[in-house]
Structures are given as structure tokens and as C-alpha cells.
């Protein structure tokens, strides 16, 4: 009797099957890296607490308003979104110690020494009718101004841009140039005509 040989299974089609599956996952995959602008909301004021007069010196605050027609007002003058970044940079850095621009207080920063930290606060107000698109554009310009200031600080002190610093150095830069954006309590701007 002849010895029965089991025929080998033809494996050339496994590649095809795997390709099909591969195509399926290639199609459905979303290399979703979500990006966005991070913010920390202020906590809700305690209703029992008396409203303290949180008076910030007038020179230390810049009011950025966006109205329902998406016009931007920085300080007291209308401004284009493209110019907002330079305005904010001037405001925060105050290179010539202009008395109308924010004061600087020498602050001890651990690992760096004393640095004149600007006291400037950017207060952002919007109308209920402002479009989200414009709001994000304004937020983006403000963040861009702060990022550029941080980059300049990092370049002059460490010779490298901010993102290439070590974590400790980044913390120092963050303390030297803080991101102080206040998203004010909603006000119905449209009612005041």
C-alpha cells in the first residue's frame, strides 16, 4: 500500500486575506491627535462671600472686547486681529517702562534669580453674538503673543527656543512670563446701547 501523503495547505492566500484586513484598518483608522487651546476656568464665586473689590490697577489690565459683529476692541481702540499680537506683546513686555503700561515687580524665581515679572492681565470679554471662530482667533493671537515672549526669554537666557528647554527651565520661563488671561463674567453687552 502506498504511503498517503498529506498535501500541504496552500498558504499563498493568507497574504491576500491579511491585505484585506489591512486595507480595512487603514480606511477606518483616525490617527486622532486632538489639539486645541487649554484654559483653566476661574472657580465660581461663593454666593455667600461678599464681593471683594478686586481692584487691579488700571494700568495693569487690558480689556479685549469682541462684539457681536466680530469687531475687536483692545484697550479703547478698535484693532484688527492681525495686529492684536503686537499690541499684547507691547503691553506685557513694556520695554520702555511706560507708566501707562503694566508695572513690573521683581520676583524671586527659584533657579533663576530675580526677574521683573509683568503684572499685566488680559481680560477677554465677548458678546453672546460673537462667533466662536472669531473668539478662537482672538484667543489664538493672545496665546501667540505670550508664546513669542517666552521664546524670546528662552533664547536670550538659554540660547534655545522654549520647546527645546528642559522641564525645569520651562517652569522658570512660565513663572517669568505667566499666562494671565481672564475670561470675564459674561455680560450682556448688547443691552448697553
Amino acid at each position, binding site marked *: 500500500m502506498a504511503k498517503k501523503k498529506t498535501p500541504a495547505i496552500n498558504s499563498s492566500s493568507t497574504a491576500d486575506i*491579511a491585505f484585506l484586513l*489591512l486595507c480595512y*484598518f487603514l480606511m477606518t483608522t483616525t490617527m486622532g491627535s486632538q*489639539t486645541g*487651546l487649554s484654559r483653566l476656568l*476661574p*472657580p*465660581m464665586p461663593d454666593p455667600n462671600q461678599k464681593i471683594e473689590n478686586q481692584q487691579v490697577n488700571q494700568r495693569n489690565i487690558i480689556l479685549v472686547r469682541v462684539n457681536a459683529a466680530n469687531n475687536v476692541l483692545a484697550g479703547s481702540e478698535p484693532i484688527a486681529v492681525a495686529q492684536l499680537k503686537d499690541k499684547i506683546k507691547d503691553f506685557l513686555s513694556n520695554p520702555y517702562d511706560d507708566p501707562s503700561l503694566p508695572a513690573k515687580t521683581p520676583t524671586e524665581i527659584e533657579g533663576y534669580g530675580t526677574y521683573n515679572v509683568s503684572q499685566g492681565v488680559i481680560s477677554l470679554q465677548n458678546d453672546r453674538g460673537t*462667533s*466662536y471662530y472669531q473668539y478662537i482667533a482672538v484667543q489664538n493671537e493672545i496665546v501667540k503673543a505670550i508664546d513669542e515672549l517666552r521664546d524670546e526669554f528662552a533664547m536670550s537666557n538659554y540660547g534655545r527656543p522654549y520647546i527645546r528647554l528642559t522641564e525645569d527651565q520651562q517652569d522658570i520661563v512660565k513663572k517669568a512670563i505667566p499666562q494671565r488671561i481672564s475670561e470675564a463674567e459674561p455680560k450682556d453687552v448688547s443691552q448697553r446701547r
Partner: protein
Amino acid sequence: MSKFGGSRNNKEVPGISSGSLSDIVFMLLFFFMVTTQMRESENKVVVKLPEASQSVKLERKDLASYINIGTPTRQYQGQYGTDARIQLNDSFKTTDDIRDFIAAERESMSEGDRQFMTTVIRADEDVRMGIITDVKQELRRCSALRIMYQARKPAE
């Protein structure tokens, strides 16, 4: 003559073995299987994200809860109209439901991670700020203070 025994006359090129092809493809397959993530919830609102060049990556994706804001998709417009609506999980909700939503999201996280919870606001660029201000106020009331305005980086 030849030391290696190859005869000079036999010049036939050996066929390339395709046996390892499937292994390579399987490896690719596993890569995509691991990196892929299925969309958990169906989008019922149209969201076209605004552009922001300074946007940064979301650090802990597992700690994010999403609030979608936009106009309902065409199939729901008959029922819900074309005004901007809030979508939480899989259904249309109002600002009053955000409290329960945040509480449920918080509940599902471990104790230590709760303080790092981030609420991602996925809003359409044409939405008016009124609805977003309402959402923000509600989030402040629930003390879910870490938020992120989702935006996309403009193509360079």
C-alpha cells in the same frame, strides 16, 4: 572547479520566496489594529473646527470628556431644527444636563485622576458665543475647570 560547487552553466535566478510576505503584512496589520481607535459615539451635530496655530496636543486623552456643539445633521434637522445644539454622548441635551454628564464622567474615573479631568469643547466655528458661555458657566458651577477649546492646526 568552483569551490562552492555552483556550476557555471546553471545561471537561473532562484525565485524570491513569498512565504514571509504574509508575516510582513501581518505586522503592518497589527500596527494599525493597535493604533486605530473606533469612534465611540455617532456625531449628531456638524462640527467644523476653527483653526488655531498655537493649539497644543491634548495630554491625557483618556481623561477627556467631550461636549459637542453645532447644528444638527440633516437627518435630525426636521426634529431638532437648525439652531446650534449640544450633544453629550449620543443624544441632544440642554445645558441643564451638563451637570449630570460631568458627574457621570467623574464617577467613571479613578480617584486620583479626577483632578486632571479635561472637558473638551468641540464647537463648530459658526456657533455663537452665547451657547458656549452658557456651557462654560455650567462647567464652572460643576467645578470642572480644566477645559480645552478643540481646534485644528492650519495646514502649513
